[in-house]
Structure formats: structure tokens, C-alpha cells
């Protein structure tokens, strides 16, 4: 068989076998014990031509209801935002996407500089001293923050707000189990972390207090108050923040956060059914040498020209092996690039404009829901999500909405038993007044 990805000809093969000094390719596999030598071919689907495969996969893709042809009010951690068109043009340059980790800085200055710029942008948005080159996603980044806190404080307990994304909390719990760290949940009150309960639960074995900003219900936590409580007990304060919201909200770095993590999916990264996304990890200079993952630093070459290298590698698994700060070996470089391009396109003003549109449009939706007779139980300050109470089951309403081309909000009852018949509605800058009005109207009809 001749395949377009396999350039060797029969003559090449003959010449090469002669150079090696063997009769056949099979001889090169003679070290595989006979009893485990796989015979024949895999029982998988036959190869398809480029055009036939493309046709088949387009049909498969068309079976899904996407957020481009439907109108989405689904958020819960992953959002349908404006993606500047240039983002895909930049990350489609194959010098970026066909490269690997920049181990050879002389021929990787492009990637290294792009990451250095990303680190700067994240540090600016979060108000932290520094940020790393990215993590798998917001959830694993939060888990790594917890592990760092436990290692740094030599304490074995994490206080985790119930108003953190449930899937993030689940990931933290899995990592914590591996390290024999105890997880204690902090209950919520009126849709935000319950401060009185936090004061009760915190003790001198608490490594860190973790909250989300804005939290899972779209409500904005009072970070200053929570951070002070964490620090009084000599624990660290970890914030999982939506970096778009930080265009408007006071950044965690100004409110006492020791570590700020989150996901940069909001900047130019498609929803992509769960990934890949772009976790970020930002912290203080004090904790710099305990950061997981890769860091890019500025230096000079032999002629004194400015350049960039992977740095502080003594923390990492390929040097430290079992004593490394984390086992993470890759980052999300291509997504960090995508986020950097989107942040650059938006720029200083655009990030504020876009964040503000989210708040204002969500407020419009809140007023519209209330005017239509819905209850919005949590009345605190919000970003781009609100909780709406329904009479009927949320999944039943959503099943009807999809018939109208609307992807409804997240069914909170699936995660919080006390919030049966409550839906989390996300309103981004992409939702028009018309779309919001239609949602409220349809939900009103299906709720009756």
C-alpha cells in the first residue's frame, strides 16, 4: 500500500534494508517474544480516502446541536464568547502548532516570547506577581494549587467553598486523596460562601481556603473578608477566577490571594465539548519556586540580545523526578497562544468593554425574568450568570427550548439537591436583546 503520509518507496526500503544488513523489516522485530508477537491486523475500521472521510465526519458533526446555529444560555464554567477571527489564523500557523516544547531556545524564540507575553497578561489580569505558562484547565490548576498549599504549609486540610464548580471540586478531591489531604466543604448562604461557617471550620491544620470568583452561581464573593480569615489562621488563600470578569472586578491579587487560578477559555477558545482549554496559574513571588509546570524567563544571549528560555526547571519532573513540585510535563501552549491573541485583540479597553457588557446584559435578563414572574433567589452582585427558579423540571424545559433552537441553562438540581427546579442562565456579550426576550418568553410558556 502507498499512503500519502508514508513517503518511502519499495526501492528506498530495499536500499535501507541492505544498509542495515537484514533481509526484511520483520527481522527488526525478532526481539519480540513469539508468544506475544501480534499477528495480522487490528480489527478496526478500514482506511478511508480523504474526501470520503471528510464527508463522513461532517455528517457526524452535523448530528450535534452546536452553539453557532443555536442560541446558547449555557455557561457553568465554559462560555460562548466573542472569538476574534484572527485567533484561528494565528494558531493555524504551523510553526506554532507543529512545534513541541521549546527545549532549543535558539529556534523557539517565537513560542517562548508568546508564552512570556501570556504570563504577563495573566499577571496583569489577576493582579498577581507572576503566572506560569499554563495548565491543562481550570479544574486541574485549582487542584495543583491545593497541593502546593498543602506542601508549603505542611498542613493537611483544604476548605473548599460549595460555590465552586462541582467538577472542579471533584478534581480537587481526587488529587487530595492521592496526597492524603482532607477536604472540608464550606456551605453557602444566599448563593455565596457562608462566612460564619468558614470561621467555624477553619483551624490550624487548614492549608488553604478555596473560593471561586465570580462563584458558580454567578455571584461575586467578598474576597477581602475571606482572604483575611484564611490568613489569620496562617493558611493560604486560593481563588479560582474567571479572567474575563477581572476586566471589571478588583483582581484577587489586590484582595489578598496567594494563588489565583482559572481557565482562559473565555478568551478566544471554543467550547469544544470539554477541551482542550487553557488553565492558568498565578501566584506571588514568595511561592515562585513552588509553582507547578513550565515558566519562561527573560535573559540575554552571548551578544547581549534579549531572549527567552524555559527557567527555574529545578522544580520540574525531568530534573527532580520523584521530588518534583508536580508531575505535569506539558502545558497548553497552543491555547495559551490563542488566549494571548484574543486578549491582545481586545486589549486594555476591550476586556473592560466585554466584561461590562456581560454584567449589563445579565442584569437585563434578570430584570426580564423577574418581570415575567420568575424568582431569582440570589440577589447579590453578579457577573454573567444568574439563578432562576422554575416550576417545572429544568430538563423538561430545556428539551422544549432546544426545539426552538435555544440551548437552555445548567440544571442546578443535578449538582445541588436543594436546588431542584433551579437553572443557571449565562448571558454573554453575544446574546442580543431579542434572544434574551425570546428565552424569557419561551421559558415563561414552558414553565406554566
Amino acid at each position, binding site marked *: 500500500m502507498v499512503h500519502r503520509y508514508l*513517503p518511502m518507496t519499495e526501492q528506498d526500503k530495499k536500499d535501507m534494508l541492505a544498509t542495515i544488513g537484514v533481509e526484511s523489516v520483520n527481522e527488526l522485530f525478532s526481539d519480540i517474544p513469539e508468544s506475544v508477537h501480534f499477528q495480522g491486523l487490528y480489527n478496526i475500521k478500514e482506511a478511508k480516502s480523504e474526501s470520503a472521510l471528510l464527508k463522513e465526519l461532517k455528517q457526524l458533526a452535523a448530528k450535534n446541536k452546536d452553539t453557532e446555529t443555536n442560541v446558547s444560555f449555557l455557561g457553568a464554567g465554559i462560555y460562548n464568547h466573542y472569538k476574534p477571527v484572527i485567533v484561528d489564523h494565528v494558531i493555524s500557523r504551523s510553526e506554532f502548532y507543529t512545534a513541541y516544547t521549546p527545549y532549543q531556545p535558539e529556534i523557539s524564540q517565537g513560542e517562548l516570547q508568546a508564552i*512570556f507575553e501570556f504570563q504577563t497578561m495573566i499577571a496583569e489580569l489577576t493582579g498577581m506577581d507572576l503566572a506560569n505558562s499554563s495548565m491543562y484547565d481550570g479544574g486541574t490548576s485549582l487542584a495543583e494549587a491545593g497541593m502546593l498549599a498543602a506542601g508549603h504549609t505542611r498542613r493537611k486540610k483544604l476548605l473548599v467553598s460549595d460555590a465552586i464548580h462541582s467538577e472542579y471540586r471533584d478534581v480537587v478531591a481526587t488529587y487530595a486523596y492521592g496526597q492524603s489531604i482532607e477536604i472540608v466543604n464550606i456551605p453557602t448562604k444566599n448563593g455565596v460562601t457562608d462566612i460564619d461557617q468558614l470561621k467555624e471550620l477553619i483551624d490550624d491544620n487548614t492549608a488553604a481556603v478555596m473560593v471561586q470568583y465570580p462563584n458558580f452561581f454567578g455571584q461575586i464573593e467578598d474576597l477581602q473578608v475571606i482572604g483575611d480569615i484564611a490568613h489569620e489562621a496562617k493558611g493560604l488563600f486560593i481563588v479560582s477566577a474567571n479572567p474575563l470578569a477581572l476586566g471589571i472586578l478588583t483582581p484577587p491579587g489586590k484582595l489578598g490571594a496567594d494563588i489565583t487560578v482559572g481557565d482562559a477559555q473565555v478568551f478566544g477558545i471554543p467550547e469544544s465539548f470539554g477541551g482542550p482549554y487553557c488553565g492558568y496559574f498565578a501566584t506571588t513571588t514568595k511561592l515562585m519556586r513552588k509553582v507547578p509546570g513550565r515558566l519562561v524567563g527573560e535573559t540575554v544571549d552571548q551578544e547581549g540580545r534579549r531572549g527567552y528560555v524555559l527557567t527555574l526547571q529545578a522544580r520540574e519532573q*525531568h530534573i527532580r523526578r520523584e521530588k518534583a513540585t508536580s508531575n505535569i510535563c506539558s502545558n497548553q501552549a497552543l491555547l495559551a497562544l490563542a488566549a494571548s491573541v484574543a486578549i491582545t485583540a481586545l486589549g486594555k479597553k476591550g476586556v473592560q468593554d466585554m466584561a461590562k457588557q456581560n454584567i*449589563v446584559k445579565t442584569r437585563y435578563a434578570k430584570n426580564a425574568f423577574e418581570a415575567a414572574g420568575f424568582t431569582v433567589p440570589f440577589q447579590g*452582585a453578579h457577573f454573567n450568570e444568574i439563578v432562576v427558579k422554575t416550576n417545572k423540571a429544568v430538563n423538561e424545559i430545556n428539551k422544549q427550548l432546544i426545539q426552538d433552537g435555544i440551548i437552555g441553562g445548567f440544571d442546578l438540581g443535578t449538582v445541588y439537591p436543594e436546588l431542584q427546579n433551579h437553572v443557571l442562565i449565562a448571558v454573554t456579550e453575544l446574546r442580543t436583546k431579542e434572544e434574551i426576550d425570546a428565552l424569557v418568553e419561551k421559558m415563561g410558556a414552558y414553565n406554566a
Partner: protein
Amino acid sequence: MHNENQSLIFELSKEGRVGYSLPALDVPDFDLSELLPEGFVRQEAAELPEVAELDIMRHYTALSRRNHGVDSGFYPLGSCTMKYNPKINETVARLSGFANIHPLQDETTVQGAMELLYDLQTSLVEITGMDEVTLQPAAGAHGEWTALMMIRAFHEANGEGHRNKVIVPDSAHGTNPASASVAGFETITVKSNEEGLVDLEDLRRVVGEDTAALMLTNPNTLGLFEENILEMAEIIHGVGGKVYYDGANLNAVMSKARPGDMGFDCVHLNLHKTFTGPHGGGGPGSGPVGVKADLIPFLPKPVLVKKEDGSFHFDYNRPQSIGRVKPYYGNFGINVRAYTYIRTMGPQGLKEVTEYAVLNANYMMRRLEQYFDLPYNRHCKHEFVLSGRRQKKLGVRTLDIAKRLLDFGYHPPTIYFPLNVEEGMMIEPTETESKETLDAFIDAMIQIARETEENPSIVQEAPHTTVISRLDETRAARTPILRYTKIEG
């Protein structure tokens, strides 16, 4: 490559420029003070760049020209499988029905995506010879940790929570011991013998009733097949441990030997390596894990299943599961690319992938063995390791050889790894390179070997043609500058 002083995007910024276009606000505006309490509103704006669209494109285009990818030239970086990244994969991953679906949508609205994932899972079960596969881990190291957590849960469920030792060969990837630590295990290193394979005597010596698992790459990082694999599996199973397969080197054995048939209990794969990810400048990856039947109850949540009516479903009812390892269901976009690749190659194609990967590596090894030391002289698999100790005696280190290769337009091999080879150079050509490309690289290596004897300074002072010369890494680590800071005035 582009040779100019390169500005940072922040240095191109000028107040008042924008690179975006948002729809006009079509709902009543509010003053932020009406919506947010005092103290919640940011007082100082984040210092982000203000640049118009063309200048953004020029900036990132300039950066791309200062970067080497597989499409730029040969990239024989050992253990990283830098093969061609097919363009159809990129097209498919960007189809709106795949790129623009939300992970929390109702299952009935994403059956196409779930069908793709299920078919990929099924294909990987066949390729690895395991009983079940999860696509959740985000990368290889994440897969290692996931599998080790499952092994831990398995032992605990059997009342054997005291098994706290993971055995790792001295040639192992650094992620192996690091993942073991994160999963709460202690690492024990087992030695390699003179042939570059795991020393069975040493393995017998270190195993015991505290053995949780052995982590093994096969072929190992020297590119050599561990011939005694069945005996090794027997030793570990004999004391009640599990055998873990690090799938970083699967490109060497597809259709030739399956981890499941070799006695392995679990395996992680690097879809961004063997299955054309792509590498993305360091990520994203995807690190599925395959397991044998007795580990299935411990798979991370959720498990993708096919129901009797033919529909697909995420099953959360898994009482013995280790829990969630990642939000949602893995790096879907990478899994779509890997699936597209498998469907492009088919069974015959995947077999030829391995055959050419191994043919190419052996050909290069034989053509280079006269010029560089070859510590382990036997057929290699998809990669081989040369030693630069002959050149080191002449004052030229492996690092110098790597830097000299940059002048020829190549990405160098992986260097100083594995740790058990002095001045190591680990070369992995992959199957997608032509004989002409291999020959040109070999000629460059031979020329460097000659230069080392005749004119070592040209090697020692390399690179000569890149946009920047060797960088001061000590300075970077001693006084870390990890972000841009605007100089006022």
C-alpha cells in the same frame, strides 16, 4: 529565520488603538456603581496591549518565523514522536458540530460527538489489547497519575492498602517517578543491565509484598525492546503487583505487540505523539488510559457507554471509581484529531507506520554508528541512542553537537537522556520522513563529527545562523524575570 530585534506586544501598544469589534449594546446601560458594591470594581485597568489588527497579525507572524515546527523541517526529538501533523485533522476538529458544542449540553444533543469518542475508545481497546479505555486524562503524565490512582484504589479495595512502592527503571521518563509521588507512592529505582534492559536480578531483589506496581516503557527509552517482558510481568504479578505500560513509545510496536498481550494491566497513550495530536508548542495533549478487566471498576468518572438502544451515555454510577481527574470528558479536540488519523490510516496503515518508523531508525543508526559511539548495538525500535563520549574527549559536548545541528535547519535530538547514557543523543526519525531527509540529516551529523576533529570551535560556538545565539540560562534562573514590566518615562 527572521533576524531582527523583536519587540514585545506590549512595546507596540499605543493608547487609543483597538483590535476588536463588539456588537453595540442593545439593552439599557447601567453605571457599574449601580450593579456592583464599592470595592468590587477594579480601580486600575490591567495593562494589556492596545494594538490594531494588522499589527497584531504582523507581530504573531514575526514570532512564528522565529519558531521551528515539523512543517519547518526535520524534528528527530527522541521519545516525542514528531511525525507529520495531518491537515485534515485540523479541518475536522474545527467543524462547528465538534468545535462549538458545550460539554454540559443534554446528551441527546451531542450524540455525534459521543459516537466519535466511543468509536475512538473501541479502537484504542483493540490497539492496546486492553479491556476498557478512558479518554479523560489531558496528557501523558496525567494518564500516568490516573492509572496509578486506579492501581492504588484496586489494592485498597482488596485490603492491601499497604502496597506503597512503585518500581521504575533508571531509564524511565521523569514523569514516572513524579506521577508516582503525586499518587502517594514511593519510588524504587531498578537498574538496567549491560544490554540496556531491566536487570531481572535487581528487579527480583526490589519486589515484595509492598510492591504496588512496576512502570515500564517498552520499547524502553533506549529504543530497545524489553525481551524479558513476560518474565518481568510474572515477577510483579507473583508478588501481587500491577504492571503499568508507559505508552510514550507505542509508535514502535503498533500491530507488532500489544501491551495487553505482554502482561500489562494498564497503559496510557500519548495521542499527541503516536496519533498525530499535534504537539502545539508544548500542548495540549491527550493521555487516554486502557485497563484490564479487574481495574475497570476504578476508572475515573464518567465512563462513556453505549446503551442497548444504540445511544451513548456518560455513566456516573461507578461506586468504586477514583473520581474525576479532569472537568468534563478529556481534551475532545485532540481526541477528534486522533480519531481522524486512525480512520485515515486503517489497520494496514497503522502496521506500516510502525514498520517504517522502525526501519528508518535502524537505517539511521547503522549509517551513524561509525561516527558516534553506539552503546547498545542491536536492532532498535523507533528510536536509538548515540553517545557523544568520543566527541567529548575532543572537547565537543553533545550540547554543542545539538546547537550545531540548528545551523543545518534541524531540530536536534533529545539530549542527555536517558540518564544511563553518557552524553546521550536520542534520535527518533518517525515514519513520515523520506529517505532523502534522513540522508541529509545523516550527512550533517557526519560533517559535525568531522568538524569536531578538524575544527572543533565551529561546533563549540554554534549556532551561527539562528536569530539569537546561546542564551544565558543561569542568569534567567538566578534573577528570574517572568513578565514584562513597563519602563516609565
